[in-house]
C-alpha cells in the first residue's frame, strides 16, 4: 500500500525491513534523491577514485523546531556537513544520509524535509549516494534526527587548519552574525516573536572555492555554528596558544538580530550561524581576500573583524566602540534568555 502523504504517520513497520519500508524508501527517498548510484539499490555506494586528497566530514543534526524561517532540518543536514568539508578547502561531491524517525511523525512533514534535503543537495551539485532509515518508538526521539557524511576532494595542495594560524593573521567574517540562531529562537515555544529574521543556512562551498583559488595562502577556515563566534575563537586561541582580538564596531549584524538579542539579553557572539565562515589569513593577503569575498553573493557583507596576537595566549578579547577592551569568554551552557 502506498504511504498516505496527507494524514499518514511514521509507523514501526516503516523501519521493520518489510514491504512498508521498501515502499517508503522507493516512493520518498529514492524518488527525491534520484541518482544513478542510489538507484542501483545496494547497501553501499561504489565511487570513482578522487584526483586530489580525499576529505570526509560527518555531522548529526537535531533542531527544535524542525522547520524555521529560512530552512528546516533537511536543508540544515546538507549545508552543515558540506560546509564542514568545504572549510578545509575541498570540493564536496557526495553525501550519505541516515535517518532516525520517531513513530507517529507525520509523513507529510517527513516528505517536506526530504524534498528540501534533495533541493539543497542538488543546488550544491552533490549526490546523496547511500543512506539508511530506522524507526524508534514514540517518545524515544524528537520527530527526526539526520546524520549526514560528506565526501569530496581537496582543491589544491595547501595544508589548512588551526596549526597553520600565526600571530599577525587577520580574521575575516563572511557576513552578518547570529541570523540562524535567532531565526530558530523566534519560533521556539514560549518565545515566539515576529521578525524579518531568516536563517543563514546555506552551503558555502562555492564561496570557499573562489577564496581558495584567489588567495591560496588562507591559513584556516571555520564555521561559527553552535556556541557562535565566541566558541570557535576561544577554541582556536587555546588550541593554538595565541591571543585573538576582535573589533566590535567591525562586526556585521542585521538590525533584527541586534533587536532580538537586546530583547532577550543574548550576546550575538554566542549565537549559532549556519552559513557563515571565519577565515584566518596572512595580513598581506587580507585586503585581497576581503575583496574576493565581497564579490561573491555569499560574502557581500564580509568584514575584517579581528587579528591574531602573540600576546595573551588562549585569550579572546574585543575592542569596544569606546576604545575599551573586554574579554570574550566561552558561553556557559545553553544561551537562555535572561531578565537580569
Amino acid at each position, binding site marked *: 500500500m502506498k504511504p498516505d502523504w496527507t494524514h499518514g504517520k511514521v509507523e514501526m513497520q516503516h523501519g521493520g525491513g518489510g514491504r512498508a519500508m521498501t515502499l517508503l524508501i522507493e516512493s520518498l527517498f529514492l524518488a527525491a534523491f534520484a541518482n544513478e548510484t542510489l538507484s542501483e539499490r545496494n547497501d553501499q555506494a561504489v565511487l570513482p577514485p578522487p584526483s586530489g586528497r580525499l576529505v570526509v566530514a560527518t555531522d548529526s543534526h537535531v533542531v527544535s523546531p524542525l522547520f524555521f524561517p529560512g530552512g528546516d532540518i533537511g536543508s540544515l543536514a546538507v549545508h552543515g556537513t558540506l560546509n564542514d568539508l568545504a572549510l578545509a578547502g575541498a570540493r564536496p561531491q557526495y553525501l550519505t544520509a541516515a535517518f532516525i524517525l520517531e513513530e507517529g511523525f507525520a509523513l507529510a512533514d517527513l516528505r517536506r524535509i526530504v524534498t528540501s534535503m534533495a533541493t539543497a543537495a542538488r543546488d550544491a551539485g552533490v549526490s546523496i549516494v547511500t543512506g539508511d532509515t530506522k524507526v524508534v518508538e514514540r517518545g524515544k526521539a524528537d520527530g527526526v534526527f539526520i546524520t549526514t557524511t560528506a565526501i569530496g576532494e581537496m582543491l589544491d595542495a595547501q595544508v589548512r587548519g588551526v596549526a597553520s594560524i600565526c600571530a599577525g593573521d587577520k580574521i575575516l567574517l563572511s557576513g552578518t552574525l547570529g541570523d540562524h540562531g535567532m531565526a530558530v529562537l523566534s519560533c521556539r515555544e*514560549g518565545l515566539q516573536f515576529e521578525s524579518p529574521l531568516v536563517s543563514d543556512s546555506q552551503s558555502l562551498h562555492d564561496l570557499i572555492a573562489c577564496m581558495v583559488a584567489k588567495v591560496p595562502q588562507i591559513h584556516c577556515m571555520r564555521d561559527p555554528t553552535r556556541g557562535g563566534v565566541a566558541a570557535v575563537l576561544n577554541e582556536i586561541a587555546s588550541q593554538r596558544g595565541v591571543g585573538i582580538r576582535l573589533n566590535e564596531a567591525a562586526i556585521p549584524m542585521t538590525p533584527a538580530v541586534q533587536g532580538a538579542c537586546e530583547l532577550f539579553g543574548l550576546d550575538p557572539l554566542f549565537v549559532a550561524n549556519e552559513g557563515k565562515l571565519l577565515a584566518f589569513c596572512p595580513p598581506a593577503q587580507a585586503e585581497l581576500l576581503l575583496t574576493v569575498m565581497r564579490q561573491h553573493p555569499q560574502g557581500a557583507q564580509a568584514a575584517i573583524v579581528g587579528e591574531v596576537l602573540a600576546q595573551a595566549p588562549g585569550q579572546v578579547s574585543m575592542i569596544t566602540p*569606546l576604545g575599551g577592551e573586554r574579554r570574550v569568554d566561552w558561553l556557559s551552557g545553553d544561551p537562555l534568555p*535572561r531578565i537580569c
Partner: protein
Amino acid sequence: MNYLDEFRDGNLGKQLLDKIHAAVQPKKQYRFMEFCGGHTHALFRNGIPALLPAEVTMVHGPGCPVCVLPMARIDMAIELARLPDVILCSYGDMLRVPGARGTSLLKARAEGADVRMVYAISDALALARKLPARQVVFFAIGFETTTPPTALALLEARAASLQNFTVFCNHVLTPPAMAAILGGLEVEAPPLHGLVGPAHVSAVIGTEPYLPIARDWRIPIVVAGFEVLDVLQAILQLIHQVNEGRAEVENEYTRAVVPAGNLKAQQVMAEVFTLRERFEWRGLGWIPHSAMQIRSAFAPWDAEQRFDVKPVPGKENPACDCPAVLRGAKSPLDCKLFGHPCTPDNPIGACMVSSEGACAAHYRYQT
C-alpha cells in the same frame, strides 16, 4: 530616536571619559558603588574599568536578584518542581543556578521534573489555563522592577479563580539593601563616596526613596540608565558632587524615571504584597523588611502556603569572599576561590552565579 543607539555613541563616550579624567582631583579617592548588575554589565562589556582614572574605583553592588537569592530558596524551588503534577515555570536566569546540593532546576528537569522557562509570567498563567489538571508554580524573583508583573498575574489569577496557579515569591527591595551595604554589614571596608542608583527599579519606585539614604549616610546618589553613556555621566556627576561636598539624589535617567515613580505599579504591588519581617540575602545575610510576601487575601495563590516545602538552610563555602566583595571590601580577584574552582560554569558564591554578578563580570569580561 530609538533610545538605544544615541546612548551608546562611542565618540560622546570618549569625550565623557576625558571629562571624567579632567574632573578628578589629584590624590583624592572616589570609591563609587554601582548598585545594579545592569550597570556592572555596561561597565565591563564596554571595557570601562581600565579607562577610568586611577582615582576612581567602581565597586560592584548586590543588585542582581539571581545572585542574592539564598541557596535555600533555590532548593525550595527544586523541591516544588519535583512534586507530582507540578510544572515549575521561571525566567531563564534561574534555571542554571545551583542550590545547596549542587543541583539546579535544569538538573532537576534532566531527572524528570517538569521545569519550563517562560519569558513573561503571563505565559505561566496561560499554561495553567491550558492544563487544568496540572499545578503551575511560578518561581518569582526580582527587585521592584519585576514585582508589578507578578502582582498583576496574582490579581488576574484571583479574578479568574484559577485553582492551579501559584507563585513562589522571592521579590526583594532595593532601599533596605542599600542601607545595609552602607552601614549594616559586619565587614570592614573603606567608605563609599557615591552610589550609582538603579535604572529600572527607579522607573517603578521613583527617586524619593533614596532621599533618606543620601541624607542619613551623607552620600551622593545618581540614578542612571543602563546604557554606557548613562553610566559615564553618572560617574561624572558623582565626582562633581564629591568635589563640591554635596550629598544629593540626582536623576540622570529622566527619560524613564520621575521622582514619584510609576504610581499604578506601586498600587498593584501594595494590593498584593506586604513586607516580610526579614529575608536572607545571599552574601549579605538577613536584612529586615527587605522582601515582599504575598498578602493573606491571596493565600490560595501563594505556593509557600499551598505546598508543604520548608527551607533547609544551605551552607555557603567558608572560603568564599562574596560578602566582602558585595560590600566593596575586596575585589573578586582577592578571593581564593576566584577562577579556581569558582567559575561561571561552576559557581561557588553568589557573585559568580549570574552574568551580572561582580565575579562573573570580572571573569567574563576582564582581560
